[in-house]
C-alpha cells in the first residue's frame, strides 16, 4: 500500500525527469517498452531499471510505457486463474488435506464394520473357502459323499490356515462365546 510519503517521493522523482536531458547511452523507447512488458531477458531488463535510477529522462519513458499499459496490453493472461488464486491463499492445500482425511476415515470405517467377517460367523470352516485351493478341496470332498470326512478336512484346513482363521479357531474352541454387536443382534449359535 502506497503512503502519502511515497507519493511525495514519486512526485519528486517525476519532477526531476521534466528537466532532464536525454543521454547518449539512453535505450530507445522500443527497448524500454519491451522491458516494461517483460519481453526482454532479465539481465537486459535490470540494466534498463538501473539506467532509470541515474537517468530521469528514461525514468519518464518507463513511466509513460506503464501509463499506456505496456504490461496489460502485452500480457493479457497475467491475471491469475481461480486455481492460482486458491493456491496462493492456501485454500487448495487445505481442501486437498480435508479430502485425504475424509478418504482415510471412510476406509477405516469400512474396515471396522467388515471386521466380523460373515463366513466365520456362519461356519468357521467357510472362511477357508475364500481361497481357490480350499474351495477345490471342499468340492472334491463333498462330491465323494463323505460328509464326515469333508467336515474333518475343513477343520484341518482351518487349523492349518495361519492368521485368517483365528476367529474361526476361537469359535470352535468356545462355541458359546459371541463377538461383535452384529452377531449378538443376530442371536447366532
Amino acid at each position, binding site marked *: 500500500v502506497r503512503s502519502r510519503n511515497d507519493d511525495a*517521493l514519486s512526485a519528486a522523482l517525476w519532477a*526531476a525527469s521534466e528537466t532532464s536531458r536525454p543521454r547518449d547511452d*539512453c535505450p530507445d523507447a522500443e527497448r524500454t517498452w519491451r522491458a516494461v512488458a517483460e519481453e526482454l531477458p532479465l539481465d537486459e531488463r535490470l540494466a534498463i531499471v538501473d539506467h532509470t535510477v541515474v537517468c530521469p529522462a528514461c525514468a519518464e519513458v518507463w513511466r509513460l510505457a506503464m501509463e499506456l499499459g505496456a504490461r496489460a496490453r502485452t500480457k493479457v493472461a497475467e491475471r491469475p486463474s481461480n486455481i492460482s488464486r486458491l493456491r496462493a491463499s492456501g485454500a487448495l492445500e487445505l481442501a486437498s488435506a480435508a479430502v485425504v482425511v475424509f478418504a482415510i476415515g471412510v476406509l477405516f470405517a469400512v474396515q471396522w464394520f467388515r471386521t466380523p467377517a460373515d463366513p466365520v460367523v456362519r461356519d468357521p470352516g467357510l472362511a477357508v473357502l475364500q481361497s481357490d485351493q480350499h474351495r477345490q478341496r471342499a468340492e472334491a470332498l463333498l462330491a465323494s459323499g463323505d460328509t464326515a470326512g469333508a467336515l474333518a478336512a475343513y477343520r484341518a484346513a482351518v487349523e492349518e490356515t495361519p492368521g485368517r482363521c483365528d476367529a474361526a479357531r476361537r469359535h470352535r474352541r468356545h462355541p458359546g462365546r459371541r463377538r461383535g454387536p452384529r452377531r449378538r443382534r443376530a442371536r447366532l449359535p
Partner: protein
Amino acid sequence: VHLTRHDLPPASVDGAHPTASATALETIAERLRSDVARAIRKICPRWLSDHADDLAQIATARVLERAIATDGQTEFSQGYVYRTVHSVLVDEIRKRRRLREIAMEPGQEHVATSPQGNPEGYARWVEFRDAIRRCLAKLLESRRRAVMLHLQGHSVVETGSLLGCDRRKAENLTYRGLADLRSCLSSQGIEP
C-alpha cells in the same frame, strides 16, 4: 483498433490500391486516428499538449505505412498501436528537451516545474529532488531497483515479476529499501 489484413483494401494488379477502396482506407485511418489521439491525450505532458493532434497524426501515419508496407500480412493489435504511440511521443519529448536545453538559460526551466510559488519553496523542492537521487544511488542494488519500481507505481507483484523474484522477496526489498531511503533523507535533514 485491431487492424488486420482483412481491414485493408485489396491491392490492384500493379500494386496501387483501387480508388473504390480509398474510402475504406480513410475510414480505417479515421478510426485508428481517434484511438491514437485518445492514447496521446492520456499520457501527453502538459507542456506538449498543444502538439497532441500532430503527434496523433504522426503515430497514425506510422501504423498505416507499416500496414501498407507489409501488404496487410502482419496483424497490428492494439498493443502495437500503443507501442507506436509511445515511441512517437518519446521521440518528440527527447527532441524538444534537447532543443530546449540549448535554447534556454540554465535553471530557467526549473521555475515552471516547481510546485511552490516562491523561491524558497522552489529551493527546498530542488534540494529534495536531488537528495532522492543521491540517496537512491546509495542503496543496495537489489533494494534500489525495487524502490525505483515502487516509486514508478508498480505493484509488489509486478516488481517481483520484473526483478525475477517472488512476491515475498519483492515486498521485503521494497520495504527495506524505502526504510533506507527515508533514513538517508533524514540524515540529510530532509523530510518528505
